[in-house]
């Protein structure tokens, strides 16, 4: 009579219990099983009927690290990286990367397995394993198009050796545009710029700007570069003329002056992503870059939303008293911010009235784009947006996909 692995008839014959095939979710569990409850949301909120675009998700390039290193153009750097992978016990998937200590804290020490790795089995086929995993997540979440980013590569913006940053950024971009993007039209990407080097950034735009699936470019994790410096203007002009968005994808660092005082990753993660984007936004606004590049679409990624009304109020307050510090501005900082674009994740929902006010302030109906951040530990399912009681039907459709369709010309 043990339930074991078989179906058990109940005593009354009306219902029966079946032992669930997965008793505990681990790093080896199939993504479709991990996300099975999200598929229920698709029915519940009728999401089949929505054009859902996920503007921030990730694949795991660790598994393809050797292929990326093979694309290092400089033979000495390629030799050095490959030698590292062969001789150091843990460098096969890390050579030349900038993998900081905090990243391995993200899974809360085994509590959130999918953050650590997706080590599930995939069928043997000609398709790249990463693409299979992307498809599984899209299917489970009801996503029609997905903007996919790397993971450890996002930390390259804080790598201390700038020649390696440039070389690795090109190598990864080549690998992704050769291996993943041409194989699935529903997968898109904003490619990383080697932002410290404007010439290399321009070369990146020229080499990859028209590749299939490339819908823009982004600055990642970097927070020590003043985005207002004259050397970057050519990048903004080039993107504006091409009609391609510039995104700022925040990243955490436990090594910043501020976060170095913190002893818990909770505090680091809460503050570090947001201050990364706050720094760039402050410089972007007070230096009048929206006036200089009025048609350039700017997107702020992976900092949630609660920081935005703070920035709006704070910058407005100071600007009115110090107008001479920001002479290019013709409007309030908050009005420029309301013309920018934001991705939703990780959306702070514990105070719904404040979230509602935030969405009004940023004009979410036209400026906000849903993002999952899957498979990261704080990912958001599409139901997060679909369930919001204060949004009307059209606003939900816009945030879940129509705004992205317009911004990226999908």
């Amino acid at each position, binding site marked *: 009579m*043990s339930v074991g692995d078989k179906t058990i008839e109940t005593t009354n014959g009306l*219902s029966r219990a079946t032992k669930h095939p997965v008793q505990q979710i681990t790093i080896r569990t199939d993504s479709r099983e991990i996300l099975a*409850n999200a598929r229920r949301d698709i029915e519940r909120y009728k999401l089949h009927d929505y054009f859902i675009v996920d503007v921030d998700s990730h694949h795991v390039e660790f598994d393809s690290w050797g292929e990326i290193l093979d694309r290092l153009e400089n033979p000495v750097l390629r030799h050095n990286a490959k030698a590292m992978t062969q001789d150091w016990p843990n460098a096969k998937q890390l050579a030349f990367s900038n993998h900081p200590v905090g990243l391995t804290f993200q899974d809360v020490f085994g*509590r959130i397995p999918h953050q650590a790795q997706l080590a599930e089995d995939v069928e043997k086929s000609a398709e790249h394993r990463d693409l299979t995993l992307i498809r599984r997540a899209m299917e489970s979440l009801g996503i029609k198009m997905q903007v996919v980013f790397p993971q450890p590569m996002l930390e390259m913006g804080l790598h201390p050796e700038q020649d390696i940053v440039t070389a690795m950024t090109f190598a990864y971009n080549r690998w992704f545009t050769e291996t993943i993007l041409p194989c699935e039209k529903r997968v898109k990407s904003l490619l990383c710029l080697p932002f410290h080097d404007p010439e290399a950034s321009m070369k990146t735009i020229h080499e990859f700007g028209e590749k299939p699936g490339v819908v823009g470019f982004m600055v990642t994790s970097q927070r020590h570069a003043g985005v207002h410096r004259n050397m970057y203007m050519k990048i903004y002009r080039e993107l504006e003329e091409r009609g391609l968005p510039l995104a700022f994808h925040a990243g955490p660092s436990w090594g910043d002056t501020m976060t170095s005082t913190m002893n818990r990753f909770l505090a680091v993660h809460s503050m570090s992503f947001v201050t990364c984007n706050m720094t760039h936004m402050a410089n972007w606004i007070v230096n009048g870059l929206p006036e200089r590049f009025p048609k350039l679409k700017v997107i702020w990624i992976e900092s949630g939303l609660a920081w935005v009304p703070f920035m709006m109020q704070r910058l407005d307050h100071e600007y009115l008293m110090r107008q001479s510090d920001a002479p290019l501005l013709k409007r309030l900082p908050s009005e420029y911010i309301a013309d920018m674009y934001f991705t939703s994740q990780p959306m702070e929902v514990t105070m719904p009235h404040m979230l509602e006010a935030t969405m009004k302030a940023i004009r979410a109906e036209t400026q906000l784009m849903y993002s999952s951040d899957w498979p990261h530990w704080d990912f958001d399912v599409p139901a997060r947006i679909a369930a919001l009681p204060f949004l009307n039907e059209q606003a939900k459709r816009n945030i879940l996909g129509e705004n992205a369709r317009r911004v990226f010309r999908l």
Partner: protein
Amino acid sequence: MPATSQRVFVGTSGDVPPNGRLVVDVGAITIGIFRVDGKLYAYQNTCAHQGGPVCQGKMVPRVTEVIEPDGSSRGFAFDESDPHIVCPWHGFEYSIKTGTHPGRSSARLIRVNVEEAPDGIYVTV
């Protein structure tokens, strides 16, 4: 979900070992049954946060922090008397005994009636 409740056999007592669990599907409902200090607890497999598969998560004792009378910290400790179930989607933790998040009592799991009869374990759905 049937209009009337049903008492459903889910397994023998041995199928839910001490400090262990059994996750079963009853129709469209997935239920986790846990045994702590000899007593059974059962919850629907839906996290109060974003609906994640909480009962399929990691079981780990509640983490506490040891504080000296003078207010200084002596670091983390496990409270073995309060095992938690952790939602694998985002890490929301619940006391298995109470079904509530230790920091926000309104975040609670959906309890399922469970009983241990001489011939095995039953839930009422």
